[in-house]
């Protein structure tokens, strides 16, 4: 029988953290003389009560260890419960969102998707705006810790290649893992602060700078304006591009770079592939835009760099309306939504390292066709990948595509048109948050979708954030079998 006590205990702990986080927007709202602070306090009270009750009643033995099944369950339930608890402020505040919309907004925030259903952000009270950014930021931190500590140990989607060396000795792993998690969060906090200062120096006011820094470093993409980053000038947009670029880079590379034996940033093959891809697509797109419009070349390049970075890093900020750009831009951005950022960051999508493994796989297949008896190996970052890793990567990409197709079909059944459904499914699964077309495109919002469509997207965002397997495995009979 599955022992759920440690699972509930950790759930409760996460809820307490969320309740504490709600204090921040409450304080901001109170200081600004808003009327929303009771909503935050009430929501915090509920979250704290449930969290405390869970921790108290399900208190396990002093030192407990999670097995594989418990780890999977704790991952899924924590995200789900925290999203549930993060939704009430939207419903109780002066916005009075419906339960569906509140849940959508909370899930979109926590999964760092950044798909919003709120129209009129420029007039929305600061408390709510800060809460959205904070959700992005907490979700990003949660995912980075999860990607560093939990997914490699569970061997989800080939993540075991990022398992730390000497990880076999169980007694030494735990302290090293928690140290890694702490240092990753420290890097995350430092980068967010740096980004906020840069935004402020580039001309944003303090509040917007902090919100956008949190949304950028988590690759979330919630903005404080309906026009997103198009509300500000070129300088701010370049800061956003830089922040997003760093946010989707492999975070462990940035931990204590002064330490001896630290892997060289320039030699990381994932980082190099990621930067090459972005520069190449942005360059082509910028020049194409310049050739087919009457814009200045520099403006085209900036807008193209922004759009490409925003989509590939799965952030979803907008600096220019892509609608009139034509077919090439739309197809390119649609495909970029699948590439995603680097693993080890808060970015979603398939992730660059998986595409690298697949490229190698295809190359090996071609070589094997010509030399049927040759032995070919698949390498990543100088190491030969073992069979299980390759198979795990492969299964991940297969499930990703199947999930995308099923949700796209479901969205059309819920009343979306083809472009909205295809791009919306890709944007939700990859946690991008921006689709194509007139409804969810660069100038739109997800508000006009039907309630059924919103729930489909809400589920898809969670599935994408938890790297598919974590969720799907709970639905296999063998999970519940002894």
């Amino acid at each position, binding site marked *: 029988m599955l022992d759920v006590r440690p699972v509930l205990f950790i759930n409760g702990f996460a809820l307490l953290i969320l309740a504490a986080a709600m204090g921040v927007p409450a304080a901001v709202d109170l200081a600004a003389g808003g009327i929303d602070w009771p909503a935050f306090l009430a929501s915090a009270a509920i979250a704290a009560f449930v969290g405390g009750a869970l921790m108290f009643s399900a208190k396990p033995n002093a030192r407990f260890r999670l097995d*594989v*099944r418990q780890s*999977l369950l704790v991952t899924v339930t924590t995200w789900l419960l925290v999203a549930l608890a993060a939704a009430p402020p939207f419903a109780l505040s002066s916005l009075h969102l419906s339960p569906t919309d509140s849940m959508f907004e909370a899930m979109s925030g926590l999964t760092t998707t950044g798909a919003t259903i709120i129209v009129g952000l420029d007039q929305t009270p600061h408390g709510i705006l800060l809460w959205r950014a904070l959700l992005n930021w907490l979700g990003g931190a949660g995912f980075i810790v999860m990607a560093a500590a939990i997914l490699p140990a*569970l*061997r*989800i989607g080939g993540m075991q290649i990022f398992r730390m060396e000497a990880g076999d000795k169980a007694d030494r792993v735990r302290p090293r893992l928690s140290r890694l998690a702490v240092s990753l969060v420290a890097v995350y906090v430092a980068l967010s602060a740096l980004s906020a200062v840069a935004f402020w120096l580039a001309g944003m006011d303090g509040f917007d700078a902090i919100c956008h820094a949190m949304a950028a470093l988590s690759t979330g993409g919630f903005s404080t304006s309906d026009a997103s980053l198009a509300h500000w000038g070129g300088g701010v947009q370049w800061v956003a591009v830089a922040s997003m670029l760093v946010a989707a880079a492999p975070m462990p590379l940035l931990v204590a770079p002064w330490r001896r034996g630290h892997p060289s940033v320039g030699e990381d093959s994932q980082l190099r592939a990621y930067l090459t891809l972005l520069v190449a697509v942005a360059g082509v797109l910028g020049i*194409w835009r310049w050739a087919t419009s009457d814009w200045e070349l520099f403006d085209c390049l900036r807008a193209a760099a922004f759009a490409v970075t925003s989509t590939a890093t799965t952030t979803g900020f907008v600096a220019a309306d892509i609608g009139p750009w*034509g*077919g*090439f*831009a*739309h*197809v*390119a951005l*649609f*495909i970029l939504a699948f590439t995603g950022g680097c693993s080890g960051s808060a970015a979603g999508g398939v992730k660059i390292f998986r595409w690298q493994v*697949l*490229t190698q*796989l*295809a190359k*090996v*297949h*071609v*070589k*094997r*066709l*010509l030399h*049927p008896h040759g032995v070919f190996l698949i390498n990543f970052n100088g190491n030969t990948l073992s*069979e*299980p890793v*390759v*198979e*795990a990567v*492969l*299964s991940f*990409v*297969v*499930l990703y*595509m*199947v999930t995308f*197709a099923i949700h*796209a*079909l479901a969205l*059309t*059944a819920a*009343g*979306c*048109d*083809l*472009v909205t*459904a*295809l791009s919306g499914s890709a944007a939700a699964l990859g946690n991008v948050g921006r689709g*194509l077309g007139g409804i969810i495109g660069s100038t739109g919002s997800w508000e006009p979708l039907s309630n059924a469509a919103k729930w489909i997207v809400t589920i898809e965002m969670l599935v994408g954030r938890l790297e598919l*397997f974590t969720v*799907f*495995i709970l639905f*296999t009979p*063998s*999970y519940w079998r002894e």
Partner: protein
Amino acid sequence: MLDFRPVLQIVGWLLVGLAAAMLIPAAVDLSAGSPEWAVFALSAGLTLFVGLALEAGMRSDWRRLSVRQTYLATALGWVVPCAFAALPFAFGRPQLAATDALFEAICGLTTTNATVLTGLDHLPPGLLLWRGLLQWLGGAGTLAMAVALLPALKIGGMQMFRIELLMGGDKAAPRAARLGTTLAATYAGLTLTVGLSLWLVGMPGFDALVHAMATVSTGGFSTWDASIGHFNKARIDLVVTLGMVASGLPFLVLAQAAQGNVRALWRDAQARWYFAILAAASLVMTLWLMLGQHYGFPTALRHGAFTVVSAITGTGFSTLDYGSWSGLPTALLLFTALLGGCAGSTSGGIKIFRLQLLLAGALVQMRRLLRPHAVVIARFNRRQIPKEALEAVMGYVFVYALAFAALAMGLGLLGLDFVTSVSGAVGALTNFGPGLGPVIGPAGSFGALSDPAKWLLATGMLFGRLEMFPLLVLFIPGFWKQ
């Protein structure tokens, strides 16, 4: 150095065969009193001359082809006949430009229903027959490739269908001959059955012949601009639907069924899924037609099943103009066309067995996550899936996705919009044909596209028909080395 002589000799034979085929429309035109017969006679003469010259000049030991020569022969064996098959389109009544003539010929031989011709209703019978004949020959080539060549070359996991011809020693030749006879008999028999049935339910003899050839090859060229919709008879729709369903089945299984072993259809895992997917997709489409377009149930079922079957087998016949639809049915058509029919048939697309293999691999992966040390084996059709086959399938699907991305982006660069680019790329790669939207939808024509767009699409069709790798390896430097 690669010895080209046996390769060119084989190409020479194919050209001689093509020249012989050209005599049929010549005879038809002559008996119909149309002066077009001279065009076919001239084209046949030219083709025969080149074919004989190649055959005589390159005489060599063609029985012992190396792996690389086999690839080259496969690629050239498709590309060169396309060039000669284009001659009647260029010389004849339509007076097509070189690009258009080649495009039409490539569509024909790759069994894609993307025509640049409009006003089919007024074309001389010889040319209409030639289009049907091209598809029929292309279908035969596809079948030969899918049953004999691709499994032997282990392309894209096709080794799962390897028939042990090489193991039998001296029994190999008779077995191969018997296999060839079975296939040819099944293909011809099915064509005959469909043709006769069409004639019996009221289609004129000539139309019945051409449509039978276009159905069984899953090509989809019609003799009327309105395609099968021209006849507007439920019985004709039914016969064509059944014909397409049969053509999407593995022909070796179909042959067993034709010999009285109908249970073979149900025992084959791929055929089982094929029927299940067909039933589910037809049901959804029928429901949509009833609820969205207010058709009665029988009419909705008739058109719904027809459209879905036409998409999944990559035929491209149409009874309704779905180009102007949006939402659910279009997404359904896009995804079913991409999925395709069974391997070992004339249909296009990724093929169902690849999805089955990949899903089986993903399921095993999930079980392995839960029990890292258990031995779990993925199976297909009661046989263990070798890991090389699984990797080959993934390599194939990845290259397919890359080809799709390149094609869609290329079409976008040429100025087409998102829906046209994406659906056009799917239509070409899967050898389905029509896309969505007003330009290349069932009511539109590919004639309106620019020449570079036609070249892109034609290349996509060839890559799709040849299952990517026989063409792709030619572009690998390693192929030409030593």
